[in-house]
């Protein structure tokens, strides 16, 4: 193999593939990157990675003078690609070693046996498309509520529900629930399907494809348990998670006894300040009363903090307490200047949504439910 490609193109491509490689692979070969160039004249190099759960593949432009296939350590190649000077890069396979040459720098890398590398799963047919920016935003808003505890694998996933031209994403770690609805362009208007996608892979992939005009989602039919995401000459497949996602829709309250609207920026700043005295997982108390909400944290002999923030309360006064980090996560995710919070009781979930301006309707395409902390006594 002998190919030549632009340094930035190569660095991006390698980074995209290396992103999904396992840091502690069950077999060393699963942490490798496969570089392929088929017949001369295609002017294209394909880089792939696959750890038997997740695959990533990218096609990039290159001058191919000699086709071939080579398998090298993914992490090492990624580090080298990042560090190369801004000049064209040559990859030359010689005597089972890969030479990487760029400007006056040159590296020689050992290779793995290509024959031992597992075949990447086929990309399922595209089920529809969505602009990359919208997809990235929606996934980021939801994935932050997914669980990180592997003892409850179902909760480490993002639930994807497709009904015609509408998609709903949901994730919960039992303490909060994030739900986002958006429209897309399905191949078949009658599509109706669900999947549970590993949250971390989904979040990484969506973020990396944020700049793509069109992202294709490909849901394998017939129980293959695979989701494909592609755009920009890049594709990822991931194995879906098994298990039944909690029936989250019944958690979304249909009515409330009080609602509060307040400036998101003011609230976030106050929460961050007051939370300085809240030790890990200790509660932030919010007391909504009249024209303001009083935030406080800390008890007894510990350090304590108080701060009031202006707010418009509609309905009864309410005292409620949250994990401050969970609240900050939700306030960051609504991405709106005005925060709308609705409550039914101190022991029931609060709903956080965004508003574009005071008095406008709250934006319900994204809802962040937050379970309170019950105070002692």
């Amino acid at each position, binding site marked *: 193999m002998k190919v030549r490609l632009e340094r930035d193109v190569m660095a991006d491509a390698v980074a995209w593939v290396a992103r999904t490689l396992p840091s502690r692979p069950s077999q060393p070969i699963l942490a490798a990157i496969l570089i392929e160039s088929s017949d001369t004249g295609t002017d294209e190099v394909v880089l792939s990675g696959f750890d038997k759960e997740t695959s990533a593949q990218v096609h990039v432009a290159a001058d191919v003078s000699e086709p071939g296939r080579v398998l090298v350590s993914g992490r090492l190649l990624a580090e080298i690609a990042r560090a190369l000077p801004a000049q064209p890069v040559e990859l030359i396979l010689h005597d089972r070693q890969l030479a990487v040459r760029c400007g006056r720098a040159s590296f020689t890398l050992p290779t793995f046996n290509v024959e031992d590398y597992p075949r990447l799963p086929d990309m399922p047919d595209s089920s529809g498309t969505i602009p990359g920016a919208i997809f990235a935003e929606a996934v980021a808003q939801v994935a932050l509520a997914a669980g990180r*505890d*592997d*003892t*409850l694998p179902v909760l480490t996933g993002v639930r994807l529900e497709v009904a015609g031209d509408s998609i709903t994403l949901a994730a*919960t770690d*039992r*303490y909060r*629930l994030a739900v986002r609805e958006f429209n897309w362009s399905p191949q078949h208007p009658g599509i109706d399907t669900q999947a549970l996608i590993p949250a971390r892979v989904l979040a990484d992939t969506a973020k990396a494809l944020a700049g793509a005009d069109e992202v294709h989602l490909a849901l394998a039919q017939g129980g293959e348990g695979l989701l494909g995401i592609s755009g920009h000459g890049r594709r990822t497949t991931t194995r879906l998670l098994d298990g039944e996602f*909690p029936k*989250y829709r019944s*958690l979304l309250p249909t009515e409330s006894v009080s609602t509060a609207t307040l400036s998101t920026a003011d609230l976030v700043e106050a929460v961050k300040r007051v939370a300085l005295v809240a030790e890990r*997982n*200790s*509660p932030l108390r919010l007391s909504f009363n009249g024209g303001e909400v009083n935030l406080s944290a800390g008890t007894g002999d510990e350090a304590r903090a108080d701060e009031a923030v202006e707010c418009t309360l509609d309905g009864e006064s309410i005292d409620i*307490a949250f*994990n401050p980090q969970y609240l900050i996560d939700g306030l960051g995710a609504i991405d709106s200047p005005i925060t709308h919070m609705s409550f039914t009781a101190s*022991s029931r*979930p609060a709903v956080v949504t965004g508003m574009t301006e005071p008095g406008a309707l709250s934006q319900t395409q994204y809802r962040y*439910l937050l*379970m*309170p*902390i*019950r*105070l*002692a*006594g």
Partner: protein
Amino acid sequence: MSRSQVRRPAGFVGFGDDDSSCPILHVDMDAFYASVELRTRPELIGQPVIVGGGGGRGVVLSATYEARALGIHSAMPIARAHRLAPQAIFIEPTHGLYSEVSAGVMEIFESITPIVEPLSLDEAFLDVSGALRRLGTPTSIAHLIRARVVAEQGITCSVGVASTKFVAKLASTRSKPDGLLVIPIDKVLAFLHPLPVGALWGVGERTEESLHRLGLRTVGDIAHTPLDTMKRALGEAAGVQLHELSWGRDNRSVTPHQPDKSIGNESTFNQDVDDPEVILRHLMRLSDQVAGRMRNAGHVGRTISIKIRFADFSTITRSRTMQVPTDTAKEIFDVARGLYEALGLQRVRIRLVGVRMEGLEDASEAPHQMTFDEPAHGHRDAEVAIDALRSRFGATAVQPGRLTPGKTEQKGQE
């Protein structure tokens, strides 16, 4: 000469009787479980008696001094004790009896001073500073305690009297059995320095090895080694600690009712087990027991750990810290099972499993992060109801289905 005086070191004269700066007492029952058993079986007095149970796989809980002379010590596997001392009399432990006697002993301590720090069922530190005017010198208080324990509970104990906790504990050990030893404050170093390094608090097998490698065999050797050398050899904290102790400095006070740092239960199998189903059933039962003890003590905890001892006695522990503290068996078991399954053991033979909760907090003070799937009456309520039933009808009155008899269960010993 009484039976118990036989083992006193020959030619031992003590360190004098000046107890003027020695308000700390360490009281330790002599061969506690065995002595308690001998109360009802006086015909065995003077014989090697070993208390321990659970068939061939249990451990020695306690041994009389006659048995110890044959090389028996507590925590030794019963099977090994049988080989070392075939002539010994082996007694199964009587459940409930020892804590009853222990409560009686602790009551005696509490009547002397409120500052009592129990270390286990059969030993405690007492700070008698506040009782001197009422009851006399520390030595006379020690005599009083020894007399009352014999009179009221029918067993003997040994008492160390010193200015610090760790010297008092060493003194009681030195005076065993049925003895009393005062270490006057100006004799602490004379007492301490000839002792082997293993006598110091915090020196286990590993540390002892490292000290021996440095040529340090006695406490005096440590005392005369530069502090920097100790820190380099053992790390900052341990180096400083041993250096302080070697000069008799120990500023820990006697702390009544030291809060539990962790609560755990273990079970040793009668025969090594490689069946994951059996292991999981034991983990479930242990989780259930630990959760019950947590609720009983009013604790919630955040860190759950499991301990696995393999057939070759190598031991591993794995732990996970949860976001929110718990005291329910279901949550503890879910994590314990996850930790066990993550080990990916392929039919490895296991001798012992344990479940432990750490990072304990007072349940009444701990705020509770609620979950969406928390029903109004959840597992916790069910488990609290079970606690109540068990306290009336016994530990096996209510059990998880997985643990009910009928499943061929290999019985373990807790």
